[in-house]
């Protein structure tokens, strides 16, 4: 038999799509031809090891479920108890699900000004009740939610978030900023993001999961095991005040611990939520460079320029919180629009989601380098029509904070455009931009549901 046919038949066998006739042929070939036997074993090895690599934290441990021991044993009660206790204590892998009823739900409560959608794997299930079961998916457009698991695990999640309950002690969180508290007895609680697998070992921790930036895990107290989805062998055991972040190779790097990113209870009053923010510490990853030159700079900018990000009073080491208050920034990067060989306009753009009737506030900091006054223009488009436009003077060697507000009249995606329109090229001075933040809050004058 040709190798291609042999591999194809083995693959069909693995997929349970082999006919009885082909199975007989395959059996004969593998039994009689040593090379075919080696090929068969090699393909099965690939199956086995891929399963191992993709389930690294589970597959290397022997799983002896007490339930199975009890079912299997025919001996007297005392022997059963002794055996099951030994299995529990010594092997230490006992699924929590043995003790938790399948019907025990995950309940959740919503914070003020929260927009959510809930779906269940069972289409007939009630989507009005704030309950999640296996297969349920909760999406937070904006706002906050507090989850309470049957095991006692608690989570407070900030939008935008997308959470799916895989098991009673395992959830997938594709997006969201979440704080988790796992009580004693519920260790092993697992959160999967698209980039990380986080297994709790008895603790309090936070996860940032985003489609725009690398996922992060911050351990507030206790111990957590984090592995990379892309590199399953890259496993980190984190303890209190440690944090990791996925790097551009998909592996995990240590990062600054920041407990303030997370909230551990639902807010009592409605606060603006962050729609987008960028301090340009991840390059221009989240932006399109629509025209001209836009580069990331760090620290001093040019010989004659007083601007720097390294500690002087007039620096860019500031960012905004969701209420517009200035806080310490996370990095030293900023964006430069234009240069000597790229006359204005130079621009960057990014889309963000807007909802009808809500108020959006756009915050940013800007400056001009070296010799002259420059201009920064900011516009917001919806369906290619400008709905808001502003121009600001950027002072030489001085960072300035500005903001503006607009109300959305429709649901959809808006595009924000920062450019240096009107800047004077002969001055050999560039427009600098940093700390962009857009928040959304309810319009208290309009009726909200």
């Amino acid at each position, binding site marked *: 038999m040709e190798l291609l046919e042999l*591999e*194809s038949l*083995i*693959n069909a*066998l*693995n*997929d*349970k799509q*082999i006919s*009885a006739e082909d*199975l007989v042929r395959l*059996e004969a070939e*593998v*039994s009689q031809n040593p090379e075919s*036997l080696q090929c*068969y*074993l*090699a*393909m*099965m*090895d*690939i*199956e*086995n*090891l*891929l*399963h*191992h*690599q*993709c*389930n690294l934290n*589970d*597959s*290397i*441990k*022997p*799983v*002896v*479920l007490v339930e*199975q*021991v009890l079912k*299997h*044993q025919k001996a007297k009660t005392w022997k059963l108890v002794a*055996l099951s206790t*030994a*299995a529990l204590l*010594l*092997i230490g892998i006992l699924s929590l699900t043995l003790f938790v009823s399948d019907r025990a739900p995950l309940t959740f409560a919503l914070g003020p000004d929260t927009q959510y959608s809930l779906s269940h794997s069972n289409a007939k299930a009630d989507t009005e009740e704030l309950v999640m079961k296996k297969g349920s998916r909760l999406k937070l457009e904006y706002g906050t939610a507090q989850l309470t698991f049957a095991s006692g695990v608690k989570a407070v999640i900030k939008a935008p978030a997308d959470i799916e309950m*895989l098991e009673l002690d*395992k959830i*997938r969180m594709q997006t969201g900023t979440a704080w988790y508290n796992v009580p004693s007895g519920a260790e092993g609680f697992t959160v*999967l993001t698209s980039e990380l*697998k986080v297994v709790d070992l008895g603790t309090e921790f936070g996860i940032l999961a985003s489609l725009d930036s690398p996922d992060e895990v911050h351990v507030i107290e206790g111990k957590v095991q984090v592995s990379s*989805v*892309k*590199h399953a*062998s890259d496993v980190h055991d984190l303890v209190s005040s440690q944090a990791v972040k996925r790097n551009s190779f*998909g592996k995990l790097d240590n990062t600054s611990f920041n407990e303030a990113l997370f909230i551990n209870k639902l807010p009592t009053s409605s606060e603006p939520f962050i729609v987008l923010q960028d301090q340009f510490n991840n390059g221009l990853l989240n932006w399109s460079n629509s025209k001209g030159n836009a580069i990331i700079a760090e620290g001093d900018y040019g010989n004659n320029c007083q601007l720097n990000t390294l500690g002087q009073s007039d620096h860019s080491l500031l960012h905004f919180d969701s209420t517009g208050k200035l806080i310490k920034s996370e990095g030293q990067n900023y964006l430069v629009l234009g240069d000597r060989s790229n006359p204005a306009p130079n621009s960057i753009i990014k889309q963000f989601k807007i909802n009808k009737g809500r108020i959006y506030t756009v915050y940013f900091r800007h400056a001009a380098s070296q010799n002259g006054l420059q201009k920064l223009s900011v516009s917001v488009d919806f369906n290619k029509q400008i709905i808001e436009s502003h121009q600001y003077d950027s002072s030489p060697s001085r960072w300035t904070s500005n903001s503006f507000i607009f109300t959305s009249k429709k649901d959809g995606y808006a595009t924000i455009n920062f450019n240096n329109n009107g800047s004077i090229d002969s001055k050999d001075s560039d427009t600098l931009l940093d700390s962009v933040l857009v928040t959304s809050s309810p319009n208290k004058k309009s009726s909200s549901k």
Partner: protein
Amino acid sequence: MATQQLSTSDFIRLLTEHQIPIRGLILSMAPGCQDVNDILQDINVVLWEKKNSYTQGTNFKAWAYAISRIKVMQYWDQQRKLGKISLSNEFLETIAEARSKDTPSYLEDKLQKLNHCLSLLKEKEQQLVHARYSESITLESYASQVGSTTGTMKVNLYRIKKKLKSCVEKKITPNSNLS
């Protein structure tokens, strides 16, 4: 000579070390079986119960494989009773015999090579492999996420697995490209 029994902790260590080889034996004797984890758990229970019959210093793998082999045979007996297509006992014996010749470091070496080969795959291919083999996501839901069909995903997976098999066998160098 008096037989020496293993301490419980040593037994658990051995059992842990042999989880991947035992799973490999099950997969080879029951390819495509969706109950592999259940069979493995069942085998673990039997090994645990029979741990006093294992003598320290003897070949743990041979002892565990002998028990595993019987359990997988029992699985196929059940399948036959249910009228399902099954592998012949002769074939199963051939596979079990071949598996018994695997050296202790065999899978470890292969795993190292496979890890390297996985890192050479494109990101989308890695994601597809993860979707197929991770117990946290199904191939169906992944196909729907990326706007494709399960059938297309299976065809792509087959190509990827062939690439991986070939890569592992070639003992490639770290700078090789996987094409």
